[in-house]
């Protein structure tokens, strides 16, 4: 068995366990990718190959699915993924200024990861908390009613 790459951090045995959980069902591919990414941080080429051979589907299809959905990533990301909503309801209430404050505070532009690998900054689909727009999500935690002034205060919790 091929050892996993350092970015992947998941063994073929662990992937096997996940596939077993879903009874090796091809239909469960999205659920499998969720679980593998949760364990490994991202979906490496090795992990995708392992899933493809386990479920007996072409790796091109697995890669196609992994890159279709915004919650999946084939590249390693920061420890904390900051997802910023810039859809209309957040835009109307000043999301641009939140983006500016985040970029300034972290010293990176949208779509990038800090050099220490701690934070990734990216746009997201609507988070569905438009009643408290503008909003962001840091890993699983959502923050709403944001102002540029609150950005450094929130980031402090993660630094």
């Amino acid at each position: 068995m091929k050892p996993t790459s350092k970015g992947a951090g998941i063994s073929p045995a662990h992937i096997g366990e996940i596939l077993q959980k879903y009874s090796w069902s091809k239909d469960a591919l999205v659920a499998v990718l969720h679980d593998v990414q949760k364990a490994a941080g991202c979906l490496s080429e090795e992990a995708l190959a392992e899933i493809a051979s386990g479920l007996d589907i072409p790796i091109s299809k697995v890669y196609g699915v992994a890159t279709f959905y915004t919650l999946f990533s084939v590249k390693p990301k920061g420890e904390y993924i900051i997802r910023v909503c810039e859809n209309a309801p957040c835009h109307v209430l000043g999301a641009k200024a939140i983006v500016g404050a985040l970029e300034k505070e972290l010293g990176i532009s949208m779509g990038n990861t800090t050099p220490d690998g701690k934070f990734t900054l990216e746009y997201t689909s609507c988070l569905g908390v438009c009643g408290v727009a503008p909003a962001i999500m840091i890993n699983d935690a959502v923050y709403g009613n944001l102002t540029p002034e609150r950005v450094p205060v929130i980031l402090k919790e993660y630094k």
Partner: protein
Amino acid sequence: MEFYRSHVLVCGGTPCVLAGCKGVRDALIAEVKRRGLDKEVKVVETGCLGPCDLGPVIVVYPEGTLYEKVKVGDVPAIVEEHLLKGRVVARLVGQGRQAEVVKYEEPTYLGVQERIVLRNCGIIDPESIEEYIARDGYRALAKCLTEMKPEDVLEAVKKSGLIGRGGAAFPTGLKWSFTARAKADQKYILCNADEGEPGTFKDRLILEGDPHSILEGMAISGYAVGADKGFIYVRGEYGLSIERLGKAIEQAKALGLLGSNIFGSGFSFDVEIRKGAGAYVCGEETALIESMEGGRGEPRTKPPYPGTEGLFRKPTVVNNVETLANVPPILLNGPDWFRKFGTEKCPGTKVFTLCGDINNKGLIEVPMGITLRRVIYDIGGGIPGGRDFKMAQTGGTSGGCLPKEFLDVPMDYFTLPEKGSALGSGALLIMDDSHCIVDIAECFMRFFEHESCGKCTPCREGTARLHEIVAKIARGEGQPEDLELLGELGSAMQASSLCGLGQAAPLPIMTMLRYFRDEFEAHINDKLCPTGTCGL
């Protein structure tokens, strides 16, 4: 069963969680205990109460007093004054609403609202099946299974005139009848909870606030069409919805309200949850089915429609969360009761989510056919900062933008399309006169370019070109012929895109061109923004 003289309901919907309701709940429980009131007063975490921007929100019953923006520091005062001495803590009441001391049955903070879908949201503990049952939960299912034939159930839903609440506005009874008629060894009920329309968060708060109502609606639908298996496809981002649905399914199974031979009727029904992974297009029913089958969420060519050939190529009913939440009360109270609400062609209520430049943001449920003016000014508290209303986008980012001439148009599934817009999912994005049309248009078009799945050319290319042209106008590089081009491209996309995404994407821009053409022209001809806010 224990009885309490007072119940303190703490809203546990996501917006209130963000505002710190968990801390307030814990402080209330601790303080009530410390004052020795824990045998008299019960603290309950409920689903969404509606005023999402005023969280954390709590209601003290039996009086029905609504407290807003409650902080942990306010808890001792509420317990001491209200729960111990019976005096309302006035400083926490009605900061943004005309909330008064109200009766249990009709809380006045709801104003002109009518609650059918949200009947239990903010009233029961969503994690307690007993509380759902105490509010007539699962009684409609019992009635269907023990007193009605599947065809009677179907007939009742048809008669009620219920129209699907996901956006496409298809009559629910008719949809069910396609699947009921289909001959197959297996049929499915699929609940579409992949709520991705920007500005919409109703399904999230219904699932968080009253998950059993969806399970009951699905089981009734299953009985009507002959399906014994249901799936709920929920957005991956909706953690709390997934958690509460999971608990609800376990509880219902434990009591035999889901599973085999429900109420000894011989009817069996099981429900499983499937988690999405972030793709707006999966809200389209065939894309959702593709995703459920482990593929990229790309829509299928229709026909065949899911009603006859859906999930795993079997006949499948795909219904939105809000649609299903309407089903139990319709069966329990009858189609005539349901038709008392709303309009002749669109009976019932609609759940709207208010966002943007409006004083009271959040979740409301009102009779179908209500006007924008009543929603914005009577319920929404008007526009903040003394500014003027400029436009409202109805139905989310894939809906049209209406100027103030349309404030008195009834909002339903038939009237709004006549004005070039749509009721859609019920999102209402209100914008004041400080916003630049071109800047907002660019925001909309960027969204569609990103969310187009790329399967069909009109949508893949069309969304990219619409965005490109609008961005050019925003930069001050627009040409007079660009407006014709936008209109022509939009019409072509509406006519030829494979699914609703590409067909609806031009809608906001088409209505903006119709009602705010002069602002586009100012950006193109004078290189000037009339509102002076977009930087041009």
